[in-house]
């Protein structure tokens, strides 16, 4: 099977059996791999009602057809599971080197099922697959363990780990890899921890079969040339995602003090040039990437190394918690990485707690002695540790996520719990940006920007404009961006360098030998989008329109300062955007895909009984 290995690895952690099965061709034809394969397997293998932390849930670990090949950005993989944080569909994309290594070892996907009695790590050396004892590694931080396993097994092994947060079942625990890359969101690390899997170590020495090697090589090399000659190449490579910090600050999109406003008075201290000059050591790239966005850094102040901060962490553990020293943000980043926490959710929970504290709803005793004012770096570090270790009442509470924490604490604090579907919102303030607000409302994992990033469109078309055109834009982005998660490659060559989308279909054809058009690829992406929607419908009782509700802050409370001061989006406007969206998606008024839509996308047989 050109482009694929032809094998899926299934690991039953309950009884220790390890088997391989043939990669089903029809499934790969319709879902391609990566996020697509993950969604298909999640639907077919994990029943509704499965406890996310229990033996019935599974963790699907999938490269895509482009992973590990010469094509630019071929370094991504997707982790799919039922989310302990939201209770619905979760996937998290991860860069680095692991996706390629899994393909070289000969696997199109790795399925972790059941629960191990004892801590284990999964060892893969080409055809040799073992579950090895990890009890002496339990409790170790992510970097520390990666360093140790590279030492013990050899530098050639690619290592992914969970930290103490995953072991302690913090609901937004992440998976770390390659000294600085994560599968961050939705609690994919939590599921790995619940299964008692501390790490995955892979070495693969095989190649990836290509149908038309000459054409594939030529097309890929042309794409590299296009990237290197791109107008934005130099700036993007020098600064990475941090480059948008200043723009977000000036346009009211930089989350500040728990999204109270979209601009931070001290933001100039954390703009990209300050970052670059003060702590960056190396431009670090994922597999096959010509435009390395990773910025490996060394903070002398805290004597730590970290890959980052990137924009999201700069927002969520910077301006959103009131921190303006880039070295403090780097330290907070490193703590989250080492302990194995998603920096976005951690920042969102801490910011909520800080607002509660400043409003007098939480006191210092409840905060375990921490003075939880915005801008207190030591308190931020202290709370990160307590969350990861579930130490103290507040640490343990925040480990459950902001939705749960606010429901528990009450006293109006739900109003400033900034989440959708239980996932803390990522770093774009949406008081006045209706496309982006819709993007957050409808992203299929919760409030994450990976599926659609539409603020530029808002600025260009009128921030508070409510229109079918804006909904169409969000839908368009929701088909293109996650397509990359299906293909196993990065979207940023297109997003940041404007690399042509015209490459993907011819490259896939040269790789697999199968005729495919760009329209085919988009349809597969739309199929996957509707499948992940149906997973929510089936698995979450009463799922519907209410679950797409925006965080109250943006529809009730004006931004406190900055370019959007005094503005917010009326709730009716948000609902109108949702109406346009459902209509264009072919979903009913409750947001459930109609039978006609499922039929059109070839999903009727698979999910039909659950449609509207």
């Amino acid at each position, binding site marked *: 099977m050109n482009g694929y290995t032809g094998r899926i690895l299934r690991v039953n952690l309950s009884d220790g059996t390890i088997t391989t099965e043939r990669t089903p061709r029809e499934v790969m034809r319709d879902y391609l791999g990566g996020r697509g394969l993950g969604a298909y397997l999640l639907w077919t293998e994990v029943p509704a009602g499965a406890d996310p932390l229990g033996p019935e849930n599974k963790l699907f670990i999938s490269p895509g057809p482009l992973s590990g090949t010469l094509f630019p950005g071929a370094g991504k993989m997707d982790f799919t599971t039922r989310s302990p944080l939201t209770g619905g569909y979760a996937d998290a994309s991860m860069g680095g080197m692991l996706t390629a290594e899994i393909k070289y070892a000969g696997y199109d996907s790795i399925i972790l099922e059941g629960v191990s009695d004892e801590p284990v790590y999964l060892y893969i050396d080409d055809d040799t697959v073992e579950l090895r004892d990890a009890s002496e590694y339990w409790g170790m931080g992510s970097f520390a363990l990666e360093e140790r396993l590279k030492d013990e097994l050899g530098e050639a092994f690619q290592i992914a780990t969970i930290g103490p947060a995953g072991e302690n079942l913090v609901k937004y625990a992440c998976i770390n890899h390659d000294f600085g890359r994560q599968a961050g969101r939705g609690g994919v690390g939590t599921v790995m921890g619940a299964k008692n899997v501390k790490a995955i170590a892979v070495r693969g020495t095989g190649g990836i079969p290509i149908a038309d090697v000459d054409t594939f090589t030529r097309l890929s090399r042309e794409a590299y040339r296009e990237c290197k000659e791109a*107008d*934005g190449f*130099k*700036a*993007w490579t*020098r*600064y990475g*995602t941090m*480059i*948008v910090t*200043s*723009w977000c600050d*000036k*346009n009211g999109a930089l989350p500040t003090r728990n999204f109270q406003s979209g601009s931070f008075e001290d933001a100039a201290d954390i*703009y*990209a*040039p300050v970052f*670059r000059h003060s702590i960056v050591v190396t431009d670090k790239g994922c597999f096959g990437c010509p435009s390395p966005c990773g910025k490996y850094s060394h903070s002398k102040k805290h004597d730590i190394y970290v890959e980052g901060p*990137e*924009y*999201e962490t700069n927002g969520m553990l910077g301006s959103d918690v009131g921190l303006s020293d880039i070295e403090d943000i780097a330290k907070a980043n490193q703590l989250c990485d080492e302990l194995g926490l998603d920096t976005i959710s951690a920042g969102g929970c801490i910011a909520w707690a800080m607002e509660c504290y400043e409003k007098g709803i939480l006191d210092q005793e409840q905060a375990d002695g921490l003075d939880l004012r915005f801008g207190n770096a030591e308190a931020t570090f202290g709370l990160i540790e307590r969350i990861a270790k579930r130490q103290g009442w507040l640490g343990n509470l925040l480990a459950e996520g902001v939705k749960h924490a606010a429901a528990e604490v009450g006293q109006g604090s739900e109003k400033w719990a900034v989440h959708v579907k239980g996932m803390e919102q990522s770093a*774009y303030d949406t008081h006045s940006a209706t496309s982006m607000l819709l993007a957050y409302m409808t992203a299929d994992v919760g409030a994450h*920007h*990976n599926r659609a*990033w539409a*603020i*530029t469109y808002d*600025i*260009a078309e009128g921030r508070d404009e409510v229109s079918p055109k804006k909904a169409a834009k969000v839908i368009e*982005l929701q088909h293109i*961006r996650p397509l990359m998660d299906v293909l196993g490659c990065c*979207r*940023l060559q*297109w*997003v*940041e*360098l*404007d690399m042509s989308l015209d490459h993907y279909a011819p490259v896939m054809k040269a790789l697999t030998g199968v005729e495919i058009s760009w329209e085919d690829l988009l349809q597969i992406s739309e199929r996957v989008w509707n499948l992940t929607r149906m997973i929510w419908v089936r698995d979450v009782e009463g799922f519907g329109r209410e679950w797409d509700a925006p965080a109250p802050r943006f529809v009730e409370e004006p931004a406190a300062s900055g370019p959007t001061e005094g503005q917010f989006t009326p709730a009716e406007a948000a609902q109108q955007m949702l109406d346009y969206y459902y209509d264009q998606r072919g979903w009913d008024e409750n947001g459930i895909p109609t039978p006609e839509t499922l039929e059109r996308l070839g999903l009727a047989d698979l999910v039909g009984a659950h449609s509207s």
Partner: protein
Amino acid sequence: MSVTVVPVGGLKGYVGGRDQVEVNSGGTIQELLEQAGIDAALVAAVLREDDELVTVDYRPRAGETLKLIAVMGGG
């Protein structure tokens, strides 16, 4: 006294697709962009010839060439 502004990607549309445009120096980049008819809100950042990143508040000197970095599609 003029400053050369190099719009990138989608920003070219504001100047009829030209690769670069001359503007009078003496104001911030924000002001110069208004002069050139380029929507400053869509400029993510500005790159100087020495690869240093500046914001639209920067006051260029005469003779400088500045590359405008368009906001593309975010993270």
